[in-house]
């Protein structure tokens, strides 16, 4: 074949191909099904996601590249792809009831969720500047539309506009940084970039490029001081989308950031380490302190997700295999607990109640003891209390920081976890100790019940028996091209 592609490429790209076919099927199925039967679209979407997960798992043992070296097929990519598929599946499960209450059409919604997932998968697998950027753009555009999906809702519209304008601006900054990297190295392939730039690490333009790339990506992961969009967007977006945004978009951006920094710019490690050190400390501190004052649970979780971005950035600062492993572990745990917390919030949405104020949680224990128990588990886990997964994740991150010599970073992280307990426990207090505001009961649909059960089970099981996840993450982190080389650079 003259073009340098082989049938092998089709096999290696099977997850992406299956997902693309699936999302087209969902789109067309929506067009040709009546209104009464549209609830099947949710299950069809779940089916597509399951079908995507199968080749991901089957290919997870590979360590090669596909499509002329634009996409890596390795354990690192597979780990993240599984995370995205999982997050998308939970999103779809908690969406159906919510969409019915909002009277929104599900077809395009599920289609856009799948498109965002495809973009994320490309972001996690891409080892080429253009490929990464296209993946990021696909994810971002899907999320712009999903954020504004509730058309009659002013908050949703406002959130979409804010997210779009700021997002486009940050993408511009990122693109400028990438174009500088391309200009200096003469190639878009990250592994060749690393070789080309190895000798010119003190060029001023390269330093500018690193700063621009870091700023663009920091926007996507909502790290302080690039976090201003997050509270408004998280509050205005449909609750399941907020969940997907805070988990999927963040994890995908971290995956892309790791690819960019460790595969493409390992020579600039001293520069970006310093940058992300500052960003991590700022994000943890500002996020937690701002979260204390919030009366709206979605806004509070937005600030808490900013703080969590700070914790996860610790892994990038260390840039050791252990640090990357800790990031992977934490992102997976974070996916379960954050999706779960938003799932409970989505459950509270009823015709006349928005359900995202703290007072809406009052007396939840007496109305829905199981939902309240699930929320309790998620809050404790987000706060990092021992028997839950959140504790193991933080423990792994902070110990990676200490091992790499960043003791102060770990100390700041622990102090911040202590601050964060205040607002997580406040949610619990509201659920248990306040008077019940209204007697209207919320009935979880089977989908929500399944999603919450999975999230609670994962949060507890990983907390008690974390070894399998650690081993999986460790094996996946090892396949990230340059991680060992950075270690030797130090």
């Amino acid at each position: 074949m003259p073009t340098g592609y082989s049938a092998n490429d089709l096999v290696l790209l099977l997850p992406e191909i299956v997902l693309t076919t699936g999302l087209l099927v969902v789109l067309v199925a929506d067009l040709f099904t009546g209104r009464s039967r549209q609830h099947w679209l949710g299950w069809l979407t779940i089916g597509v996601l399951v079908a995507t997960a199968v080749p991901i798992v089957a290919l997870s043992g590979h360590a090669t590249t596909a499509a002329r070296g634009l996409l890596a097929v390795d354990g690192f990519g597979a780990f993240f792809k599984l995370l995205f598929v999982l997050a998308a599946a939970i999103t779809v499960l908690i969406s159906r009831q919510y969409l019915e209450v909002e009277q929104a059409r599900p077809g395009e919604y599920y289609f856009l969720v799948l498109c965002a997932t495809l973009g994320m998968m490309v972001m996690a697998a891409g080892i080429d500047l253009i490929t990464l950027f296209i993946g990021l753009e696909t994810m971002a555009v899907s999320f712009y539309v999903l954020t504004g999906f509730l058309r009659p809702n002013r908050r949703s519209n406002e959130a979409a506009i804010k997210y779009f304008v700021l997002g486009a601006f940050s993408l511009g900054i990122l693109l400028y940084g990438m174009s500088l990297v391309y200009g200096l190295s003469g190639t878009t392939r990250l592994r060749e970039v690393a070789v080309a730039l190895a000798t010119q690490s003190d060029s001023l333009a390269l330093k500018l490029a690193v700063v621009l790339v870091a700023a663009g990506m920091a926007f996507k992961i909502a790290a302080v001081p690039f976090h201003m969009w997050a509270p408004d967007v998280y509050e205005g977006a449909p609750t399941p989308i907020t969940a997907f945004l805070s988990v999927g978009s963040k994890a995908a951006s971290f995956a892309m950031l790791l690819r960019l920094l460790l595969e493409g710019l390992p020579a600039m490690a001293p520069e970006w380490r310093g940058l992300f050190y500052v960003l991590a400390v700022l994000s943890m501190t500002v996020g937690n302190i701002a979260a204390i004052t919030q009366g709206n649970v979605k806004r509070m979780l937005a600030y808490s997700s900013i703080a969590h971005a700070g914790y996860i950035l610790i892994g990038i600062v260390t840039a050791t295999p252990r640090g990357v492993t800790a990031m992977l572990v934490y992102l997976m745990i974070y996916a379960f607990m954050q999706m779960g917390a938003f799932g409970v919030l989505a459950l509270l949405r009823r015709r006349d109640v928005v359900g995202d104020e703290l007072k809406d949680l009052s007396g939840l224990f007496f109305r829905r003891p199981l939902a309240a128990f699930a929320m309790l588990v998620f809050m404790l886990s987000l706060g990092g209390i021992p028997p839950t997964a959140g504790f193991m994740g933080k423990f792994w991150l902070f110990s990676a920081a200490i091992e790499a010599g960043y003791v102060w970073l770990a100390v700041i992280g622990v102090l911040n976890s202590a601050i964060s307990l205040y607002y997580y426990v406040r949610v619990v207090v509201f659920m248990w100790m306040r008077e019940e505001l209204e007697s209207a009961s919320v009935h979880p649909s089977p989908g929500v019940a399944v999603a919450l059960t999975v999230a609670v089970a994962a949060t507890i099981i990983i907390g008690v028996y974390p070894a399998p996840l650690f081993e999986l993450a460790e094996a996946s982190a090892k396949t990230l091209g340059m991680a060992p080389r950075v270690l030797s650079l130090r």
Partner: protein
Amino acid sequence: MEGWLPIVIMIACGVGLGVVGTALSQLVGPRSPTPEKGAPYECGVPPVGDARERQSVKFYLVAMIFLLFDIEVAFLYPWAMALRDLGWVGFFQILVFFGLLLTGYIYVWRKGVLDWGSQEGL
């Protein structure tokens, strides 16, 4: 840069024609402005209201869809140029590309975005 000389000459001719025409009428033509002459020309009828009316969002949608298919066609040109070397593989690549956008077209059609007459669509 060599092939660009004719284009530069053409641009110069175009600009020159406009400039010469305007300049000549400024220099040679008699000038006696009246309020009627200064008013915008509206087929001989006195203009009513502002020209800047609010447009329906329909126009925007059609423009958007036009633009997307415009880009699609723009991608076809380099494909056509390289097709001889791309061979059958290239043919199937563009089929995939077309298939993806065809789905979009089916969507647009079924949603009635292209129905201009009926009020039901928008």
